């Protein structure tokens, strides 16, 4: 027994001795890694600042950063948990800062200058905002987007809810219908937009023979985009309604049936009030998505046809997202495009805050 303990003790000592040697080795190694990493990064930055065109300098910088991270990771310390925390958050946060936060802050600032996409020379204050609201095409685009958003929100929700009622009824082959109604939503707006452009230009003109394409008339072109947009989103919103309707307890439905409620009464007095939350979610979802509509707009009409407004020619179906794109990329007016985008953001932020407010209020009521 004694011997056993002793031998255990010995091995323990031996292990811990090896461990401390290991730990020292490890510490040294990680210090070297960090040092080499930092030197590499400083060297790369030196090349950057010196204006060198060496193509390897980017790789050296990345290598240096990786070595430093590896060194920090393998450095044995009591605060290992904290090191891990920082290392875990860093990559995603870094990508987020560079792609979202910095461009966002820059973007708001650029909207106050005469930025041309590369640099700015002058601070113009709110000048861009004022000249933007004075231009007919922007005001028109604003109104058209508003009309589209409201009608589209209404259409999508009505169609989606009707489809959802159909898909939760006793009809056979429900799963097939659900999948069929849902498919348009899976495929990108660009590809579908071109297919629909073909349908409007070549198929409908033959079905109603001799008629001009819907896309040549400003009002009908808007209707065309509404049709496609409803077609594409209704299946998606339908699936959310289906989930909501399936969560209505079946015993309530049965009880109401025993009490003599017919289908219409069941629908309006039980189903709709019970999924009020789902309605809120769907309405805001379609509101935001319709307002941001770009792909279909770009692929089906790209703003055409033009229309006269107060003596100005404006693109009759150019929604805000497309208007921003065309202003900046098409007409090369980056500062104005950016200003329009900031307004775009402010409207979306107000809508989202309203949604948060409403759902919070509902939670309190429940």
């Amino acid at each position, binding site marked *: 027994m004694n011997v056993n303990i002793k031998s255990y003790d010995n091995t323990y000592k031996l292990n811990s001795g090896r461990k401390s040697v290991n730990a020292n080795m490890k510490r040294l190694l990680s210090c070297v890694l960090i040092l080499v990493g930092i030197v590499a990064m400083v060297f790369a930055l030196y090349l950057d600042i010196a204006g060198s065109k060496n193509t390897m300098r980017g790789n050296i910088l990345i290598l240096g950063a990786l070595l430093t991270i590896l060194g920090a990771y393998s450095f044995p310390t009591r605060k290992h948990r904290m090191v891990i925390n920082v290392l875990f958050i860093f990559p995603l946060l870094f990508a987020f800062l*560079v792609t979202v936060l910095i461009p966002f802050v820059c973007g708001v600032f650029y909207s106050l200058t005469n930025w041309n996409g590369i640099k700015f020379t002058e601070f113009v204050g709110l000048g861009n905002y004022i000249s933007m609201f004075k231009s007919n095409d922007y005001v028109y685009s604003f109104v058209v987007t508003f009309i589209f958003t409201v009608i589209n929100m209404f259409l999508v929700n009505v169609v989606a809810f009707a*489809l959802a009622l159909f898909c939760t009824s006793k009809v056979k082959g429900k799963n097939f219908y659900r999948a069929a109604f849902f498919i348009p939503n899976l*495929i990108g707006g660009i590809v579908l937009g*071109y*297919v629909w452009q073909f349908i409007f230009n070549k198929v409908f003109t033959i079905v109603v023979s001799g008629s001009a394409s819907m896309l040549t008339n400003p009002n009908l072109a808007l209707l065309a985009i509404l049709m496609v947009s409803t077609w594409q989103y209704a299946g998606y919103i339908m699936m959310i309604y289906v989930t909501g309707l399936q969560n209505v307890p079946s015993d309530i439905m049965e009880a109401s049936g025993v009490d003599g409620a017919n289908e219409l009464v069941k629908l309006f007095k039980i189903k709709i009030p019970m999924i009020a939350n789902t309605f809120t979610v769907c309405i805001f979802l379609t509101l935001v998505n319709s307002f941001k509509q770009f792909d279909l707009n770009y692929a089906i009409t790209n703003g055409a046809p033009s229309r006269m407004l107060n003596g100005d020619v404006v693109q009759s179906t150019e929604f805000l997202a497309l208007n921003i794109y065309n202003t900046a990329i098409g007409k090369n007016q980056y500062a104005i495009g950016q200003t329009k985008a900031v307004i775009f953001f402010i409207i*979306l932020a107000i809508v989202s805050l309203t949604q948060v407010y409403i759902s919070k209020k509902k939670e309190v009521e429940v």
Partner: protein
Amino acid sequence: MKGRKTKLLIGEIIGIILALVILFPFILVILDSAKTSADIVISPLSIPGKWGQMLVNFNNVIHNDSFNYWKSFFNSLFITVISLTLVSTLAAMTAWVLCRNKTKWSGFIFMLLVAAMVIPFQVVMLPLLSTFRNISEFFGIQMLQSYQGIIFAYVGFGGSMSVFILHGFIKGIPKELEEAAWIDGCSPEGTFFRIIFPLLKPVQMTILILNGIWIWNDYLLPSLMLGLNGKIKTLPVAVSAFVGSYVKQWDLILSAAFLAMIPIVILFLFAQKQIINGIVDGAIK
């Protein structure tokens, strides 16, 4: 009983008509990608005389320089797969740390990520281009017209929503699991990768599907960052570039559309349930 049966029959007829109306564009694409451009203009709705024409059209499209199907397909696949792997892993790591450390900083970072979900792409796209151009010039890391640049951008844009969804899920995992692992001598990174990460499978499914469909179909970001005539093209960009160069050749355009739709439709047929659940879960959260 009889009334019920006729009701069901009417329901079925309505269903079939609805499905036909909704699937009409897809049926049309299949029919018309098997016709010559002359036949399409004359009778777009008829059944094609020779299905063999479809292969001829596909062959023309696949070997077209501005479409280059296989190259764009593999570009899309590569960008989507790498971005998804990175987003789902990095977002889980971030969400775990933010969830398990209740400090001022973690709260602030989480609020920042959630608030950023409101930011539409349009407001950051122009400064993003100039930021990336500056990075390329200053640091010598090619960010525009390169794989690493667009994957980096997708990690940045997809990150906030993924962290938000994962954060909600990780909150529900009992802390005792991690404490037990810690007592057994597991390191924090080991605890995460061996215990927490496998538990995230159901919610990772949602994240992969939501981000996957978005990245695969995205047009604006790749068209700006890779360019319509750049070396690297994703499928939507290739379709758009192709349509731009052949305005009236509908046989080729529809064949291109067909080829661009096929991968995701096949995927949907295999993973229908997961995809629908994933998308609905994502919307409700």
